[in-house]
């Protein structure tokens, strides 16, 4: 058995966890992330308030469930019209295909109702948290409870913060605490950094993200995903040979 196979087996080996603790873990994992995302949600709320249809804008907190795409949709709608707004937001959210495909590999034993319910809650922090939790060896039942609890916690807080931002109005546009989000996300993907293959993925994706930062919305991120994945596969082959 190769090192890689052993690693994969260790990740996927089921480890029974108390169901209640899995749900509680999901909630507790999301609390600091939620705190990190609140300023961003307030800014989106302020943008929603400035827009002509605040209820429709707020509804995006659950319907789109992705801050960058939500904000881009509202701002681009005013500047360039509906077609450009929809295209830009969908391009930004195209990365969700990757998260969902990744979780599909983890969730082969999950029931159909869960895949439908969970689909609406997949976003960067919930993906990273679910991957980390599954990597610790949680069984399918615990993974299910953990993900639903984490997704609903983040979603409820996110939606409430956008509503608060809409109520407070444009006075909060100056909030500047962006450093909190990368610190939280970094802690979630931290365990991956112990593997040389995933370190290669991280370094390659970060480099491409920096180089393509000026590209149109969402496209640089997709380029970083493509290059990071390819670098990971190449490194995996090099390690195996």
């Amino acid at each position, binding site marked *: 058995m190769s090192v890689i196979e052993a690693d994969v087996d260790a990740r996927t080996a089921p480890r029974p966890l108390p169901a209640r603790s899995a749900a509680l873990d999901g909630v507790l994992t999301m609390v600091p*992330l939620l705190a*990190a995302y609140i300023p961003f949600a307030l800014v989106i709320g302020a943008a929603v308030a400035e*827009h002509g*249809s605040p209820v429709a804008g707020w509804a995006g907190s659950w*319907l*789109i469930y992705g801050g960058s*795409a*939500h904000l881009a*949709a*509202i701002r681009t*709608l005013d500047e360039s019209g*509906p077609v450009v*707004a*929809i295209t830009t*937001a*969908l391009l930004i*959210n195209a*990365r*969700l*295909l*990757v998260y*969902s*495909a*990744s*979780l*599909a*590999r983890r969730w082969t034993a999950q029931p159909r109702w869960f*895949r439908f319910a*969970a*689909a609406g809650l*997949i976003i*960067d922090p919930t*993906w*990273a948290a679910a991957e980390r939790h599954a990597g610790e060896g949680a069984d399918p039942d615990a993974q299910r409870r953990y993900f639903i609890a984490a997704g609903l916690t983040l979603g409820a807080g996110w939606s409430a913060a956008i509503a608060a931002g809409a109520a407070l109005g444009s006075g909060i546009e100056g909030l500047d605490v962006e*450093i909190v989000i*990368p*610190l*939280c*996300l*970094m*802690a*979630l*993907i*931290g*365990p991956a*950094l112990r593997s040389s293959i995933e370190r290669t*993925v991280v370094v*390659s*994706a*970060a480099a491409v993200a*920096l180089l393509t*930062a000026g590209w149109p919305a969402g496209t640089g*991120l997709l380029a*970083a*995903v493509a290059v*990071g*994945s*390819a670098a*990971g*596969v190449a490194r995996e082959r090099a390690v195996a040979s």
Partner: protein
Amino acid sequence: MTWLVILAVGAGSFLFRLVPLLVLHRVSLPEGADRVIRYAGCAAVTALITLSARGNATGDATLPTLLALGVGIVMAVRQASMFRALVAGLAVYAMAALLIALIAR
């Protein structure tokens, strides 16, 4: 018009989330595609971290941001809890920002 845009983006985003969960449940991917997917999520979050940090690292905030990220990386590799990583990163950020402000006086 806002409702139309929100509903269209919401529907498209939901399909992005749902289709792989339904399709990949039934279809087994070639080994190469499976490997790409394994690393793609990690690459996407890394890109988001990078872009978010880049947005913050401007002017006087550049050095504090880089130092906080450095501490965050060390804490992440050591598998520190998110709370500890956040507290350590923010403390370094605050101290560096304060130091720069004092020097600038």
